């Protein structure tokens, strides 16, 4: 229970929940620490923290109710003002003036039809928001998003609606919705006992389900204050146009930056030059400036570059560091540095694929640390930059086009070695892998020696295979990399499973302590037994064996596709060799 841990300021390790909002004396510095520590990831008041740091809410908790009711009323009046219903009684009811086709002035239908176009555009975008998350398939949520965006567009005429805003709004609604639900849950579980009635009222008012739409609008507006600079139209400055006429064949990075977005992207290019000159040189030699891919990165605040739960954590850190532009630039550069090994070994097409479909980050914590280090090198130590991306998949989970379409060149294996994604959990596998790799290399060197007697029965194959051998090894290495990645996901799943079971065990232990009758004890014992069984079933595939087992299965599948049966044998033999090798 958090109640026991009430101290004047929250330590960064403890969980940060609704009660801590009231109990602690909060300030930007405190919240910045909390956000950086990542404790908001599991808390149910992330939306409140965002609202605090974006100044939608004052730090004085007593003023919350007033502020909230003010912003909610404001939204209601805006809605009345901007969502015109021609059937409303407030308009003239004379059919000569108020009918759908009349072209007279003051006809409410005119604005209605004007909005309809915008509504169509917004509706199309909204229906494509986070297709992988069920929450956004809900009709009510979509309706709500459309209305918020429409009102925003009509209220902020200089920004209007631009594609991408829906992707900013979506996580905000999601977070507020989750927090409202989380608060209800906490209330049901009596986690708010320590609060006085007034304090509970304040929280009730803050996490009120009915005002999801109003609160989302307010939060969206404040986030857009930071982000709208990237949505602005390029300023048509006549003077600059006359000075530097557009030349034919001019590249996008050579033109004078016409909007603040472009200026920022130029800045990012310079920042990258400072931080990682090699990478900057590589990209500029390939003619890939940030202007080419960075538009979306900045406008969506990296929303499409990482999965939602990681994105929310990134936003925790980003939103508190206002104005957000400098940190956003650092995050941008860190994203590039993260995949520098992939970029440096890729050609133009490969680089673009990696940049357009950013390989998901495995460990967001160290990534955020890296970004914060670039933001403030003196304060934040540089973390160990490990290879930290799942280079074989895209954020949506499908396999990355770079992996499926482009077979690696024979030289690649040695260089591409470190490409293997290696978050901490994979270390257990490293020796096994190394062995397998060694075997492959050895075999590729001594390939002329027939290693299998059965191969001599197929003499017609030999001459065809020999020149391709090098290629085949490459393929196998590639396949093994794929296996490693699937194993990695499996390991992660197991880790998660173990965590869950340990939690369940803790609950059980608690119950045992409280149990009174022997029947209860027996039931609990049964539960514990079941848990241990589940645990065993997970562990039946020992880590060291799994590669070989999986290796076979995975390869059988792959090979059946390729219709080259002899190669299955290769893999088997190779595995045999790995096990025998130490004895030889």
């Amino acid at each position, binding site marked *: 229970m958090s109640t026991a841990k009430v101290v004047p300021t929250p330590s960064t390790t403890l969980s940060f929940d609704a009660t801590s909002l009231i109990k602690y004396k909060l300030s930007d510095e405190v919240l910045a620490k909390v956000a950086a520590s990542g404790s908001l990831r599991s808390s149910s008041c992330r939306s409140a923290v965002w609202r605090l740091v974006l100044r939608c809410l004052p730090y004085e908790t007593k003023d919350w109710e007033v502020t909230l009711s003010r912003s909610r009323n404001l939204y209601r009046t805006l809605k009345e003002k901007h969502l015109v219903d021609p*059937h409303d009684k407030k308009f003239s009811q004379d*059919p*000569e003036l108020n*009918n*759908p*086709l*009349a*072209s007279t002035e003051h006809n409410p239908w005119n604005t209605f*039809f004007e909005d*309809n*176009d915008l509504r169509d555009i917004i509706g199309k975008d909204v229906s494509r928001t986070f297709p992988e998350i069920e929450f956004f398939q809900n009709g009510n949520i979509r309706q709500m998003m459309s209305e918020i965006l429409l009102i925003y567009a009509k209220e902020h005429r200089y920004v209007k609606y631009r594609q991408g805003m829906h992707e900013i709004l979506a996580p905000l609604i999601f977070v507020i919705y989750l927090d409202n639900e989380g608060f209800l849950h906490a209330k049901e579980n009596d986690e708010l006992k320590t609060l006085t009635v007034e304090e509970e009222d304040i929280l009730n008012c803050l996490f009120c389900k009915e005002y999801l739409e109003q609160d989302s609008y307010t939060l969206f507006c404040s986030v857009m204050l930071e982000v709208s600079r990237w949505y602005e139209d390029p300023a048509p400055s006549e003077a600059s146009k006359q000075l530097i006429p557009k030349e034919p064949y001019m590249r996008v990075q050579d033109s004078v930056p016409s909007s603040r977005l472009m200026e920022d992207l130029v800045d990012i290019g310079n920042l990258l030059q400072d931080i990682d000159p090699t990478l900057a040189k590589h990209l500029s030699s390939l003619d890939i400036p940030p202007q080419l891919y960075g538009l979306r990165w900045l406008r969506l605040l990296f929303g499409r570059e990482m999965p939602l739960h990681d994105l929310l954590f990134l936003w925790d850190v980003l939103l508190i560091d206002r104005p957000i532009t400098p940190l956003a630039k650092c995050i941008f550069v860190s994203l590039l540095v993260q995949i520098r090994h992939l970029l440096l070994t890729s050609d133009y097409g490969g680089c673009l694929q990696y940049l357009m479909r950013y390989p998901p980050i495995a460990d967001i914590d160290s990534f955020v640390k890296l970004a914060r280090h670039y933001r403030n090198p003196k304060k934040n130590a540089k973390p160990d930059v490990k290879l930290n991306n799942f280079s074989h998949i895209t954020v949506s989970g499908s396999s990355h086009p770079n992996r499926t379409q482009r077979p690696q060149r024979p030289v690649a294996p040695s260089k591409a070695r470190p490409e293997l994604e290696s978050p901490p959990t994979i270390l257990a596998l490293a020796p096994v892998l190394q062995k397998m790799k060694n075997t492959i290399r050895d075999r590729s060197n001594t390939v002329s020696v027939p290693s299998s007697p059965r191969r001599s029965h197929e003499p017609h194959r030999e001459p065809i295979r020999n020149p391709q051998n090098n290629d085949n090894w490459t393929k196998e290495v590639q396949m093994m990399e794929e296996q490693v990645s699937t194993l990695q996901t499996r390991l992660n799943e197991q880790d998660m499973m173990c965590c869950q079971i340990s939690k369940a065990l803790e609950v059980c232990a608690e119950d045992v302590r409280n149990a009174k009758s022997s029947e209860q004890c027996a039931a609990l014992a049964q539960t514990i037994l079941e848990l241990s069984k589940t645990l065993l079933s997970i562990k039946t595939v020992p880590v060291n064996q799994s590669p070989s087992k999986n290796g076979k299965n995975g390869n059988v599948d792959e090979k059946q596709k390729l219709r080259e049966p002899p190669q299955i044998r290769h893999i088997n033999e190779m595995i045999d060799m790995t096990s025998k090798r130490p004895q030889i």
Partner: protein
Amino acid sequence: MLVLLIGDFNMPHRSANISPKFRKLLVPNKMQHVLSTGNLCSRETFDYLRTLSSDVHVVKGEFDDEMLKYPDTKVVTVGQFRIGVCHGHQIIPWGDSRMLELLARQLDVDILVTGNSYECNAVEKSGRFFVDPGSATGSFSVNKTGPVTPSFALLDVQADNVVTYLYRLIDDAVKVDRIIYKKSKST
């Protein structure tokens, strides 16, 4: 949801064109559906209706080409309402209210749209709504003495009621009338 009801053009046989006053009112991107009571009489008229909305339904009038295979009646569901369309020359005696009610019951529609009377009107009878958009061009009619007033109708279909706007061209000026039909709870 806006539904345009229009018919009895008789172009080019009896009239050359729709009045420019009407053409100014009828612009694309406003109505979602167009229901025509027939007597388009030419491909060009149909094409004109297609410019107004992508969803055009036409029933056969007595002067429409047999080859075009327009149906005699058609039922379109818009929102909560079933709308039946029929030209009306098949209903004998012409314009008989009891026969129209019979047809509405047969089609099981809330709103029955018929033409052939060359007079624009909209009435509610025994829980159903009967609309006649009249003739869009005001072309002469065999069963009417004196000049015909050009007219069409527009339905604004909402959740539980339909607002009907009747547009008439009288003395070269557009007059608009509004009639509200609420769907009764029993149907």
